[in-house]
C-alpha cells in the first residue's frame, strides 16, 4: 500500500517536471510567433507587452511584397531535388551493404561515416571553385549537387539499418517464385521499407531547407535564392528588422514542423536504429 502510494507520487512528480520543461522549451517559439503578429510600437514597448494590443498582419504583407513566395518556391525546388537525388543515390548501396558480403565493405562504410564528420565549411571553398569551373554556380543544380555529399552518407546508414530489419526470407521466397533480384527488390523490399525511405527523404529535404552557408555563397541572384537567405536579409550588423524577420521565420518553420509531427514515429525510429544499432 505504502509503496504504491509512493509510486503514484513519483508519477505525478514526473508529469509535473515534464509539463514544466515543455513550457520552458516551447516558450521561445511561442514568443517568436506572438511577436510576428505585433505592430512595431508593441514590439518596442517598454516595459514589455506580452500580448499585442491588436494582432496585425503588416509584417506578413511586408514579406509577401518582398517576394517571399519566390524564395519559398526556390527552397521547395532545391529541397525536393536534394530529397529525390539523395534517395536515388543511397537506395541501392544501402541495400547492397545490408545483403552482400564483399571486399572492402567495412572500409567503404567507414568512408561514408567519416564524410559525415567533416565540417561543411571545409568543403565550401573547393565546392565553390568546382562549381565555378563547371559553370554550375548560381544554378539549382549546383546547390543540389553541393548538398549531396552531406545527405547521401547518412541516408545510406539509415536505409541500411532498415534493410537489415527486413528478413532475407522475404525476397528469397519471391525469388523462388521466379522473380529476379531486381524485381524482388521492387515488389517486396521496397514497400516494406517505405517508412525508412520517407524518413531519409525528410532528412535530406530538411537539410537543404535550412542550409544557409552554402546557399548564400553559391546562389548569387535573387530569383534563385532560398528562404534562409531571405531571412538573413533582415539581419544587419547594426539593425535587425524583427517584424518581417519573424513573420518569415514562422512561415518557414511550419512545413518542417508539420511534416515532423505527422511522421515523427518513423523518423525517430529510423534515426535511432540507424545511429545506435550497428
Amino acid at each position, binding site marked *: 500500500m505504502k509503496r504504491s502510494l509512493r509510486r503514484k507520487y513519483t508519477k505525478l512528480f514526473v508529469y509535473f517536471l515534464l509539463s514544466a520543461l515543455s513550457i520552458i522549451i516551447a516558450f521561445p517559439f511561442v514568443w517568436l510567433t506572438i511577436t510576428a503578429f505585433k505592430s512595431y510600437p508593441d514590439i518596442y514597448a517598454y516595459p514589455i507587452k506580452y500580448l499585442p494590443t491588436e494582432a496585425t498582419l503588416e509584417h506578413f504583407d511586408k514579406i509577401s511584397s518582398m517576394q517571399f513566395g519566390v524564395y519559398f518556391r526556390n527552397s521547395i525546388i532545391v529541397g525536393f531535388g536534394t530529397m529525390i537525388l539523395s534517395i536515388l543515390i543511397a537506395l541501392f548501396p544501402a541495400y547492397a551493404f545490408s545483403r552482400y558480403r564483399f571486399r572492402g565493405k567495412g572500409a567503404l562504410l567507414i568512408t561514408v561515416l567519416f564524410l559525415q564528420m567533416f565540417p561543411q565549411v571545409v568543403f565550401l571553398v573547393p565546392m565553390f571553385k568546382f562549381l565555378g569551373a563547371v559553370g554550375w554556380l548560381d544554378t539549382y543544380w549546383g546547390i543540389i549537387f553541393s548538398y549531396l555529399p552531406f545527405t547521401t552518407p547518412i541516408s545510406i546508414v539509415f536505409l541500411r539499418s532498415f534493410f537489415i530489419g527486413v528478413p532475407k526470407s522475404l525476397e528469397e521466397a519471391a525469388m523462388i517464385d521466379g522473380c529476379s533480384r531486381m524485381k524482388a527488390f521492387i515488389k517486396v523490399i521496397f514497400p516494406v521499407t517505405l517508412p525508412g525511405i520517407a524518413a531519409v527523404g525528410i532528412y535530406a529535404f530538411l537539410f537543404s531547407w535550412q542550409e544557409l552557408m552554402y546557399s548564400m555563397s553559391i546562389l548569387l541572384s535573387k530569383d534563385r535564392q532560398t528562404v534562409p537567405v531571405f531571412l538573413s536579409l533582415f539581419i544587419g550588423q547594426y539593425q535587425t528588422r524583427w517584424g518581417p524577420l519573424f513573420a518569415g521565420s514562422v512561415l518557414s518553420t511550419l512545413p518542417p514542423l508539420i511534416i515532423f509531427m505527422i511522421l515523427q514515429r518513423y523518423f525517430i525510429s529510423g534515426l*535511432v536504429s540507424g545511429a545506435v544499432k550497428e
Partner: protein
Amino acid sequence: MIMPYVLFIMVMVIILFASNIIMSFTTEDGAFTLNNYTRVFQDELVYKSLKNTGVWVLGSVAGQFFMGMLVALLLNQVKKGELLFRSVILILPWATLDIVAGVMWKWMYNDMYGVLNEVLMQIGIIDQYISWLATPDMAMLAVIIANIWKGFCLTGMFLLAGLQTIPQQLYEAAEIDGANAVKRFWHITIPQLKPVLLTTLMLGTIWTINYFPLIYTMTGGGPSHGTETVVTYIYRLSFRFMEYNKSAALSNILFIIILGISMIFLRQISKDGDTA
C-alpha cells in the same frame, strides 16, 4: 549495383580533398608555398578561436547531455501523453530552422526589449537588466544556452532509445536487493548505456565543433571575437577577406583535430565492443 555510389563518392572526395590540400600549399598564382600554414600559426586570432571552440564545445555538449539525459529519463517513465511531450520537447527545437533559432534567441536576449531580462527580473533571479550579447563572456554564455536549447533533443532521442533497450529485470532485481534510485542509475543505467553514451558524445562533439549558423546569426563571432570559433573564422577568411588559401590551410588543421578526436572515441567504442 553499388558502382554509381562508389564512383560518386570517390570523385567528390578526391576533388574536394585534393583541391583543399593543393590550395593550402599554393599562393594565389599557383606557386608552391608553406606560407599559408606559417601565417595560420602566427595568427593570434587562430589561437583565440581555438580556445573559444573549446569553451563552446564543452559548454554545449555538457548542457545538451544534462538536458538530454533528464528528458530521456523522464520520457522513459510515462506512457500517457507521450506523443504530446515528445512533440514539444524533442521535436520543436529540432524542427526550428537554425537561422530562426538564432534570431529568436537574439531577440530574447535583447537588453532593452528582450523578454529574458523581463522574466528573470520578475522571478527575482537578476536585479537589473543584463546586456547579454555586449560582452565577450556573456555572449559566449548566451550562444551556448541557445545551442543547448537547439541541440539537446537529438541527444535526448538517442539516450531515450538506449534506455528502452535496458532489460527491466535488472532494475527489479536491484530494487529487491535494496538499491535506491540513485544507486540503480549509477550501477545499471550508466554502464548499460555506455556504448550509446560514447557514440552520442562523439557525434555531439563533432557536430558542435562544426556548427556554424547559430553563432553566425546571433553574434557574427563578436563582440571583439568573443564568440569567434574556428568554423566562423574559416568562413570569414574565405568569404569576407577572400583569403582562400589561408582558409584552406586552417580547414585542414581543423580536419586533423576532428579526426584525432574521432579516433580517440572510436578506439574507446571498439574496445568496449570487444570486452562486452
